[in-house]
């Protein structure tokens, strides 16, 4: 062993002082479990995969050819931007121990507290930070789907940056950081509320304020290349295993069950959307089944650690049907232009999942009973969490968008929109030569 220690000095003489994550201070000698750590390292990698290239491609395929790079670069830049924001201040606001129950403080800003030896539960503390970072990233990236093909790139960056600090970090604190929603008993295993309802509402408010794309409802805005969307949707599905099963924060029975129900709900959502589309619109589309699978994944997110296979089946089917209705009926009735249906899928899907978690939760699986096991009040607890998130996300998004519009403007001008954002905002194009 001595030889290898020389080769890899880092393995030798590990810093002797362990700084325990405050929450764990009471515990006797928390120790890293290598298996749990291995799974969380993996989960972090595949949750990142969900955003780049997952979300990026899922959306890019639905854009017109002249905007495809602009869509891709949005997810990619957000990945960079939110990583730095999370390091500087986001993590601290979401997970530091503060006196109040609404938002953390600045104690952990710049990740000053991180050491190689610090432990959080059974995994290294820095791993928890970077795992959560990938959640902050994807939440912001999801919103862009509603704003595509017309928003100024600079305005978008200001928006998601501010939104992440003002909306995402607090809501995370409420649910997972020890804030008032976790106190109230709201169940949200992997982010149905924090990630999906939150981004879905922001998407809805922002796209209404931004206005419709030029030619919406008149010109042909059909998806230019659904191959990209299918790739993106597939990577979302695969990465979602990290999202949901990773949220067990260990490689255990809970993670395994979370993965199982995730798979079932995604499959059920895809089939449900396909079948209803087939019967109503006469053809089963690629965009449809992929959308349905994502709807199922969204809805199982809050439920993953709490329900069993049959609950997952029900949640997936209902999510597929409700989100189908949102994208094909509700949106056209309310006449807003949510480019790629972020609200219909993440907003409605997230709400569906959050409510149904309260219905299908099984005590033997996640420790909390749902309405079917007699605990009817869990549904109102869930509704409480949903309402709080909708209100805060909705209002704060409106204020941020308003402020940006009054300063640098949120939308590209008409000619730029016709020219396409790839060329106009980024000076690049897809070439056929």
């Amino acid at each position: 062993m001595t030889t290898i220690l020389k080769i890899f000095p880092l393995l030798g003489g590990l810093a002797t002082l362990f700084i325990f994550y405050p929450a764990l201070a009471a515990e006797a000698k928390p120790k890293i479990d290598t298996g749990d750590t291995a799974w969380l390292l993996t989960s972090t990698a595949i949750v990142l995969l969900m955003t780049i290239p997952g979300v990026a491609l899922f959306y890019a395929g639905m854009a017109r050819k002249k905007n495809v790079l602009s869509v891709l670069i949005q997810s990619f830049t957000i990945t960079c931007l939110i990583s730095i924001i999370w390091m500087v201040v986001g993590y601290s606001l979401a997970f530091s121990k503060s006196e109040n129950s609404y938002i953390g403080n600045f104690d952990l800003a710049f990740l000053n507290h991180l050491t190689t030896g610090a432990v959080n539960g059974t995994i290294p503390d820095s791993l928890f930070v970077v795992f959560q970072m990938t959640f902050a990233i994807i939440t912001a990236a999801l919103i862009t789907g509603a704003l595509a093909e017309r928003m100024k790139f600079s305005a978008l960056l200001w928006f998601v940056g501010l939104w992440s600090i003002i909306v995402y970090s607090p809501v995370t604190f409420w649910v997972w950081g020890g804030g008032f929603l976790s106190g109230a008993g709201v169940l949200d295993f992997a982010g149905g509320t924090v990630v999906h309802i939150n981004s879905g509402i922001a998407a809805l408010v922002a796209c209404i304020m931004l206005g419709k794309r030029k030619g919406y409802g008149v010109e042909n805005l059909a998806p230019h290349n659904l191959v990209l969307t299918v790739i993106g949707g597939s990577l979302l599905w695969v990465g979602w295993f990290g999202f949901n099963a990773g949220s067990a924060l260990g490689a255990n029975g809970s993670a395994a069950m979370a993965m199982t129900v995730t798979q079932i709900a995604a499959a059920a959502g895809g089939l449900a959307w396909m079948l209803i589309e087939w019967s109503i619109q006469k053809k089963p589309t690629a965009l449809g089944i992929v959308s349905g699978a994502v709807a199922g994944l969204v809805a199982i997110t809050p439920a993953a650690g709490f329900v069993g296979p049959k609950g997952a089946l029900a949640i997936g089917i209902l999510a597929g049907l409700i989100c189908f209705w949102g994208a094909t009926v509700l949106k056209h009735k309310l006449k807003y232009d949510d480019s790629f249906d972020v609200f219909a899928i993440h907003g409605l899907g997230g709400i569906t999942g959050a409510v149904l978690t309260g219905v299908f939760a099984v005590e033997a699986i996640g420790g909390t009973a749902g309405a079917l096991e007699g605990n009817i009040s869990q549904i109102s607890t869930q509704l409480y969490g949903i309402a709080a998130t909708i209100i805060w996300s909705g209002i704060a998004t409106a204020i941020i968008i308003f402020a940006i519009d009054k300063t640098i403007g949120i939308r590209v001008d008409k000619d730029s929109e016709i020219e396409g954002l790839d060329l106009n905002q980024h000076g690049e194009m897809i070439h056929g030569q």
Partner: protein
Amino acid sequence: MKLITAIIKPSKLQDVRSVLVEIGIEGMTTSEVSGFGRQKGHTEIYRGAEYEISFVPKIKIEVAVTNDQVDSTIEAITSSTRTGNIGDGKIFVLDLDQTIRIRTGETGNEAI
């Protein structure tokens, strides 16, 4: 000399080419075009939004021929592409002032 332009169904391209080669045509130029005519396009539905695609994919064939090849060329194209269904396409004949083969500088019938 005439420039004969035919708008045909994409699936007929190989047939037309064979027939034209058979009657002695040695060159032609094709391109992908979109046609609008009696043949209707189609509708695509994405997440409930309907898009009317009014144009149908077609192939345009351009063949420069000498005056005495005109009839046989038209006959060859017609015979190899006619199915009797709407959308079979059209042939347009234009008068060709001059033809030049770039490689040799030949002009007129020589150049075809």
